[in-house]
């Protein structure tokens, strides 16, 4: 067991994948000598060479499009998109090519591409550097979307994503990059597409993923002092959603609050709410509530604290749920 930051855990996961399979390649802007703007790939080019850890030209569509060609030749490219707001130039290659190639070839062509995207706000960044694009990708058949909330998950889920024969959008909660946690490199990890109960409780279920798991755990700790028992489910996988774990929790508590940074309209909360209604209708004591980003473009960083869901907004929603 070692203590690592999430950034170091991701680095260790990438390193282990590079060691395990010579077909694994890393491509992205500034990922070589610099080690990426967040240093997630630090030292990897030095140890695995420029042929496997590839500094790419500054062109997101090119990065993903060439990864498609490499995957067609049996490689397993792991590409880094530098920031969430810069993934959109690659959107066509992701949605029309990466996601559909297996389907278009009657299942013959695998696309084992991992697209790493640092996502979410809370770091005081300038515009286009704090976005949460998960719903666009979760909506797309052929893609799978995951996100980690702990260093341990970062380490294991990265390796599992690279081993997956399906394309994975791997969302890294950039504001949690420097959070520390225990990583047991000899453990047997949870399956990639499974949610987990991060904290058990009985009164209300908080459903969160990525950066909001920590926020919800803090909220649950604060609520405990007021005698309320909140359960926190860490979704981990956004597409597919692990419906069974969600349903089990909500059937127990009878109440659910979904928390995400992404804008509310047609976000993951909408899908979760629909599934909870379908599966937990007779267990529900209150409507499913959502605490999310407001339906505006991500605001200037001086006001992001007001925009982002935080402990108080989560507890306010818990109060409203319990008031039913």
């Amino acid at each position, binding site marked *: 067991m070692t203590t690592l930051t999430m950034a170091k855990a991701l680095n260790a996961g990438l390193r282990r994948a590079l060691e395990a399979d010579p077909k694994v*390649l890393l491509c992205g802007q500034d990922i070589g000598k610099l080690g990426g703007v967040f240093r997630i790939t630090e030292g990897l080019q030095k140890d695995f060479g420029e*042929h496997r850890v590839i500094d*790419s*030209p500054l*062109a997101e*569509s*090119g990065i*993903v*499009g*060439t*990864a*498609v*060609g*490499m*995957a*067609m*030749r*049996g*490689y397993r*490219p792991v590409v880094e998109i530098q920031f969430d707001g810069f993934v959109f*130039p690659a959107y*066509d*290659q992701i949605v*029309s*090519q990466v996601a559909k*190639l*297996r*389907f*278009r*070839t*009657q*299942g*013959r*062509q*695998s696309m084992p591409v991992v697209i790493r995207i640092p996502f979410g706000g809370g770091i005081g960044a300038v515009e286009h550097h704090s976005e949460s694009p998960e719903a666009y990708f979760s909506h797309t*058949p*052929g893609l*799978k979307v995951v996100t980690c909330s702990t260093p341990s998950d970062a380490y294991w889920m990265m390796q599992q994503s690279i081993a*997956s*024969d*399906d394309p994975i959008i791997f969302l890294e909660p950039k504001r949690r990059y420097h959070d520390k946690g225990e990583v047991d490199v000899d453990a047997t990890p949870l399956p990639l*597409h499974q949610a987990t109960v991060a904290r058990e409780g009985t009164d209300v279920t908080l459903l969160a993923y990525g950066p909001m798991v920590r926020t919800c755990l803090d909220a649950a700790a604060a609520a405990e002092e007021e005698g309320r028992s909140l359960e926190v489910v860490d979704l981990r996988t956004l*597409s*597919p*959603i692990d*419906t069974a774990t969600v349903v089990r929790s909500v059937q127990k508590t009878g109440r659910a609050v979904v928390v995400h940074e992404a804008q509310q309209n047609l976000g993951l909360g909408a899908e979760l709410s629909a599934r909870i209604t379908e599966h937990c209708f007779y267990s529900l004591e209150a409507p499913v509530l959502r605490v999310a980003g407001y339906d505006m473009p991500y605001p200037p960083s001086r006001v992001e604290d007001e925009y982002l869901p935080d402990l108080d907004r989560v507890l306010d929603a818990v109060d409203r749920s319990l008031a039913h």
Partner: protein
Amino acid sequence: MSTTTADETDLVQLLTPEGVRVEHPEYEFTGSDEEIAGHLRDMVLGRRLDTEATALQRQGELGLWASLLGQEAAQVGSARALGPNDVVFPTYREHAVALCMGVDPIDLLGLFRGVDMGGWDAEATRFRLYTLVIGAQTLHACGYAMALERDGLVGNGTKAEDAAVVAYFGDGATSQGDVNEAFVFASSYNAPVVFFCQNNQWAISEPMSRQSRIPLYQRSLGFGFPGVRVDGNDVLAVRAVTERALERARNGGGPSLIEAFTYRMGAHTTSDDPSKYRLADELETWRLRDPIERVRALLRTSGSVGESFFRDLETEADDLAADLRRRCVQLQGPGLRSLFGNVYGEQTEYLAAQQQAYAEYADSFEMEAGSR
């Protein structure tokens, strides 16, 4: 600059529209007369396939067809330049390339009939799937070429091993970001890829002048690799130029751009109406530069094949068309049921549940029908 005449000083031509072989200071066609006859066969079969597919669309058997009419030499000349390991990334119009690479033409029709999205084995034929998003495949080609290099299959000096990639695209595609990004990546990594642009003068209704103020082959210079403009209706010149570019790529010399100067004699697709945007005169001018007639003229003049060759070829082409028609009308869609399994390598429980629900729903109709 006119969009439909090339400056003759920068156009590589080895066979005039009249069927006369001419010399070029840099390029030479070294193939035999038999090979020339073979190229004629490829072009005639390609055109016959195209004519039949257009007719099938008109009769409601295909939803759409993108005609290659006029581009036979560009396609056959480049395809016949390929080595045994070279891989092709086509647009959606490379039907004659497909024929040369051994793709069963019925598999081309599946996409246009709406029964699949390309039924051929892209791995075995080395002919990747058609790509309808303009220019997207040029990046795939570039990535594939980068992978060839990582596999140690470039610059070994052995024909049995070395490989390169051809990325096909059109004049309209040169405006796409992906094509320009592919140029940047290929140049930066010295990737073994030949960018083969069929400049057929029209991107649906928009003339070449809307896409570029300079000749397309000159674009490559800005990216740091050579470009050449070839008479795209001259199968001998196209083959010679493409062979040179492929050899350079296989040997580790890096990418190059070929602009095959040709003309789309038909509509963009069967849904298009060129009479709304271009003059019949232009078509007539290009009819005189027909890629097939000039090879027929050459072969007749040289006497290297007898008249029976031409007759047999017509029969072969008609047989191909008849066989294609017979099989096309029998092509059925796969049924929705079979598609659920093609979305993921490891199917999600959610989709599996939808698959099961759909099967039960569909079966309920069959049971109802059966009980009546």
